[in-house]
């Protein structure tokens, strides 16, 4: 069908999108790599020249980097774990015949539309505040000492907030997948005497695998870049207890004006994300074969 003429036309039509994205990738990324080998501090113009691997050694040797790396993995892993397991269970529940399904869906999906800084502030001030937060009242009701969440469990607090935001997404996608499972298939399995657990493992889970892959892929893209939730709650602290790679680069590059070291951190973040991406894209490439 594709004649030489349509092929040319097609190239012309694709050109703007491809060029724009190519420039958007290549230019800043090249600059980041270039800066990462330079001594470059906005506050100290005396610092110039080639830095070799200095910035990388400085960044990687810095204990805060190791901590940020671990935090990034804990944050992504923790939220994925909560949202996938919670989302599957919730989707199974919402798939049952229940009253008010329409309203229930609206209530459950709502947190997904709350912008990240608002989500974080609601939790910080309305729920987790040790003085007048809801949880503090709850703790007091049971005669317990209120917990200062962001100081005692900073990373866990952020994981809870982010998981709250992403659980609806996982639930919605998994519920949609679940509802596309044909009724006959389930009934046939039931007839054959498969119990609920067997039906779950051998019929429902294989059917959901694709949806779960998609949820993991999309969430990972966004979770690697968690920023606002940290910015408005703990500011990365106490110390570096809740700093992830994104926040570390922001702190080094933009707040401390150390362009060289910040860029080195950025390059490391890109490399790590790409390692994750290779695995994910493979899975998705297989799954999306239309």
């Amino acid at each position, binding site marked *: 069908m594709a004649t030489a003429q*349509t092929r040319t036309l*097609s190239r012309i*039509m*694709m050109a703007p*999108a*491809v060029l*724009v*994205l190519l420039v*958007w*990738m290549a*230019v*800043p*990324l090249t*600059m980041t790599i270039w800066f990462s080998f330079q001594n470059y501090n906005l506050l100290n113009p005396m610092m110039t020249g080639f830095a070799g691997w200095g910035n990388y050694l400085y960044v990687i040797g810095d204990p805060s980097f190791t901590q940020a790396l671990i935090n990034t993995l804990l944050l992504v892993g923790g939220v994925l774990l909560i949202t996938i397991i919670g989302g599957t269970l*919730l989707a199974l*529940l919402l798939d*049952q*015949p*229940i009253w008010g399904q329409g309203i*229930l*869906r609206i*209530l*459950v999906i*709502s947190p997904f*539309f*709350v*912008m990240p*800084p*608002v989500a974080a*502030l609601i*939790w910080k001030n*309305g729920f987790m505040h040790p003085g*007048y937060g809801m949880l503090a009242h709850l703790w007091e009701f049971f005669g317990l000492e209120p917990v200062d969440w962001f100081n005692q469990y900073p990373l866990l607090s952020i994981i809870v907030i982010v998981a709250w935001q992403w659980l609806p997404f996982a639930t919605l*996608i998994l519920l949609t*997948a679940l509802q*596309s499972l044909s*009724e006959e298939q389930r009934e046939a399995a039931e007839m054959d005497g498969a119990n609920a657990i067997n039906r779950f493992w051998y019929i429902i889970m294989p059917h959901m695998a*694709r*949806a779960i892959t*998609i949820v993991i892929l*999309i969430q990972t*893209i966004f979770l690697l*870049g968690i*920023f*606002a939730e940290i910015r408005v709650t703990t500011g990365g602290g106490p110390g570096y207890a809740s700093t992830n*790679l*994104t926040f570390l*680069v*922001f702190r080094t*590059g*933009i707040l401390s004006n150390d*362009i060289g070291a*910040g860029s080195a951190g*950025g390059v490391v*973040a890109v490399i790590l994300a*790409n390692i994750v*991406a290779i695995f994910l*894209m493979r899975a*998705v490439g297989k799954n*999306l074969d239309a």
Partner: protein
Amino acid sequence: MARSASTPTKIGYTALAWAIALLLFSPILWTILTAFKTEAEAIATRPTFFPETFTLENFAAVQQRSDYVKHATNSVIVSLGSTLLGLIIAIPAAWAMAFAPTKRTKDVLMWMLSTKMMPAVGVLIPIYLIFRDLRLLDTVHGLTIIMTLINLPIIVWMLYTYFKEIPVDILEAARMDGAELWNEITHVLVPMAVPGIASTVLLNVILAWNEAFWTITLTSGRAGTLTAFISSFSSPQGLFLAKLSAASLLAIAPILLLGWFSQKQLVRGLTFGAVK
């Protein structure tokens, strides 16, 4: 599997589902209620559920404190502007990929998606410096450009999956009937593509509205969107709970409503049609 469940079972499931749903919704519900309380009531040691004295003064205070209307306007301009710009670039591309695919179309698509994999911090510093030199820092059009770029892969992908479902036979039939290319586009393709484009617009407005990383790092007072505006409430003076709730409610209400009305389209859009 339990389509014909007995009534007690149904009551049990319903109760459990409502309990969980309300629990998940409670932070939002709490924010809505607190927004109408007086500051004293909001932080009272004996918390109230419904506002005892219903007040709108928090909303007025929010506007006074840092000009909500200006930030909301910025949010609207950036969301709509970036979506429109994205569509202009993406529609031809998605069109070509769906209707005149070559061997490399799929590679190009995967490559575009992979650009979303690049963490924003990887390019933050150069973008910050380029924006500084071009005087684009803290400007609405600068932010619109960034928003277009970060959402472009998603727009292309969404449009592609929607366009692909338009049967090529119909196009060919139209061509056979002697329709000119222009007529083919305006009379056959566009009407069939409109629902897909509408869903794409919806999802991208939501994504752009809620984008926080770039709005916080590239703007301060002037071009700040609502995500930047609300982040400024993290400072100690922002601890006025009732006012914070009012500001939060104002910031999320438009998108919350939009999201409620469009959940069905969202699933398709968010998963590029891979989950139906």
